[in-house]
């Protein structure tokens, strides 16, 4: 045998993938390549946010001023952080659902249900705060798992499966409240919406904690990778032995959990549960936040941080419109225009096109 293969021994060596010396040797090689990639993804959403904030500064010089009163920071920037909390929470959940190629239209309704359950318990019985919060979270997770079950085990298209709960959910919330806006007196629960800790509004803390925990759960375990794999190519993922149904069930459950927190913030904020209006249309803002953050609706890569940046952009925009003093009828038009510009800036095709047009103009003048 002239071509006797050399004994490179691929099979035997596999035992020690974690060879420490090897890791150390490779580490240097892999870090720089990654960072340039990440920078590109962060560039446009973050610069859009900065630009919007600067517009505000231009309109109102006191925009960036933050004062400290009654044990909390006070100012427009803090308001933006505080007000963006529900959408940011929804966007965290929505990111992972969209990463699997799905979508969850029911998050707004789940907010309403969770809020209604909490308000109902605060008014109707003598439950501890802990029980009330647990009940709210449980309801959200159950709602999410129902969505996930419909999508993964019954194979219903995500947009249809979650549309069911989007429509029925508000009915459920109203049923819990008997169609009324239930208001409650509970300073402890209200703290979730209007309290402050170390100067920052409590909802901001909730977003930070949820973001941190989700980031740990998704990026310090293999879940994030599985989610991206399923979103990129579900069939290949199955051939890899990934439990794609389990992954889908999980992401909808996580979204339900995030929606429940958002619902409790919204309910605690006004100390009342309004089945009709709590979280109304926020699912669309959440989807928009994820898209502004640069994720593709077809699934694949996701970034929780960028989705939260997306939520901040949307809220900054709303605040800007209110501060501008323009008549209310222009609100939607302005919002749509700015979102369009942000999305165009993110589009490689558009940027290339714009560059070539600009070059052409310069060339023409010269």
């Amino acid at each position, binding site marked *: 045998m002239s071509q006797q293969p050399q004994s490179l021994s691929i099979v035997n060596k596999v035992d020690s993938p974690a060879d420490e010396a090897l890791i150390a040797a490779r580490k240097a090689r892999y870090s720089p390549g990654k960072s340039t990639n990440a920078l590109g993804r962060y560039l446009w959403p973050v610069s859009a946010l900065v630009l919007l904030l600067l517009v505000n500064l231009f309109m109102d010089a006191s925009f960036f001023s933050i004062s400290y009163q009654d044990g909390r920071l006070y100012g427009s920037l803090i308001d933006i952080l505080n007000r963006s909390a529900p959408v940011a929470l929804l966007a965290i959940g929505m990111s992972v659902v969209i990463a699997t190629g799905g979508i969850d239209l029911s998050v707004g309704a789940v907010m309403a249900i969770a809020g209604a359950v909490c308000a109902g318990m605060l008014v109707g019985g003598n439950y501890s705060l802990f029980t009330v919060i647990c009940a709210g979270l449980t309801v959200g997770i159950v709602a999410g798992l129902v969505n996930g079950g419909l999508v993964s085990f019954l194979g219903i298209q995500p947009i249809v499966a979650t549309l069911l709960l989007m429509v029925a959910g508000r009915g459920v919330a109203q049923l819990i409240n008997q*169609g009324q806006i239930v208001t409650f007196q509970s300073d402890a629960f209200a703290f979730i919406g209007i309290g402050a800790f170390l100067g920052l509004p409590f909802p901001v803390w909730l977003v930070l904690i949820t973001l941190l925990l989700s980031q740990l759960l998704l990026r310090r375990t293999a879940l994030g990778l599985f989610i991206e794999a399923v979103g990129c190519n579900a069939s290949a993922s199955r051939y890899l032995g990934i439990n794609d149904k389990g992954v889908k069930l999980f992401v909808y459950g996580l979204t339900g959990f995030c929606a429940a927190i958002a619902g409790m913030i919204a309910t605690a*904020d*006004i*100390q009342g549960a309004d089945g009709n*209006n709590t979280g109304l249309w926020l699912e669309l803002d959440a989807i928009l936040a994820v898209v502004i953050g640069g994720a593709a609706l077809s699934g694949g890569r996701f970034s929780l941080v960028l989705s939260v940046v997306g939520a901040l952009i949307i809220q900054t925009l709303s605040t800007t419109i*209110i*501060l501008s003093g323009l*008549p*209310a009828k222009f*609100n939607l038009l302005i919002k749509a225009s700015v979102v369009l510009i942000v999305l165009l800036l993110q589009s490689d095709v558009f940027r290339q096109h714009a560059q070539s047009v600009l070059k052409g103009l310069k060339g023409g003048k010269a």
Partner: protein
Amino acid sequence: MKLSTILATGITLSCLSVNALALTIGFAQVGSESGWRTSFSESVKAEAKKRGIDLKFSDAQQKQENQIKAVRSFIAQGVDAIIIAPVVETGWKPVLREAKRARIPVVIVDRNIQVGDDSLFVTRIASDFSEEGRKAAQWLMDTTQGNCKIVELQGTVGATAAIDRAQGFNDVIGKYPNANIVRSQTGEFTRTKGKEVMESILKAENGGKGVCALWAHNDEMALGGIQAIKEAGLKPGSDILVVSVDGVPDYFKAMADGDANATVELSPHLGGPAFDVIEKYLGGDKNIPKLISTTGDLFTQDTAAAEYQKRRLQ
């Protein structure tokens, strides 16, 4: 129970006629989609009972076809008159013609209808949104002697209630040179949005110093605004006056607590005026205007505690 003088005369009138006629009246209600709608239905039923009217009540569950069916069955039963609280504005012509042929008078309440032929119904009884705006503005001008920087929380952009309430309010303050609206934004009729918008407005208006009053197109937004004012470290009801429209129980409680100042009630008591008109019409008086406006009363902190107790029990 609160009854205007018109209503009071209505009762006396009806006492006279009931004995003679013992009317049967069909009432096609929209459904029971809100608390206000429920009180509206209850009020009509109570009013009918008081007058000895045999009321045939139909709940259409927000569907026009159910309402049309109900009206047809009223006609078949040969009722003396029909009251319709329409779900939608259009599509009423055929069934109203049938009623006309059967010589049954029809009264429209609450929402409007479009039939192009005024003779198909006797009259429409509805809340006058711009009158509500005027009442709220007049109270505010009287209280502040016409010196007031006002912040406005509008209803949903394009809603008739929002447009007309703003119109009525502006008509009145236009007469006072020292009163003007400094900020106006939509709070979409919800508490959440009302709070959020008020927060931002207060920031833009130098922390709310110099703002004299909050004018909200409904109580829900006003309640959100009140929370925002409190969180900004100001006292709603005194630092910033709060006036709005609706008269929901929560708002009466806010007034009783001193956080809000006034509200114009959106009256659910449309039954009385409707029965009045029907009795007048059946009594031979065909000279009835095609639109009868009702406007609820303005309530202030003085009666708020008592009203809250009364309404909470309802």
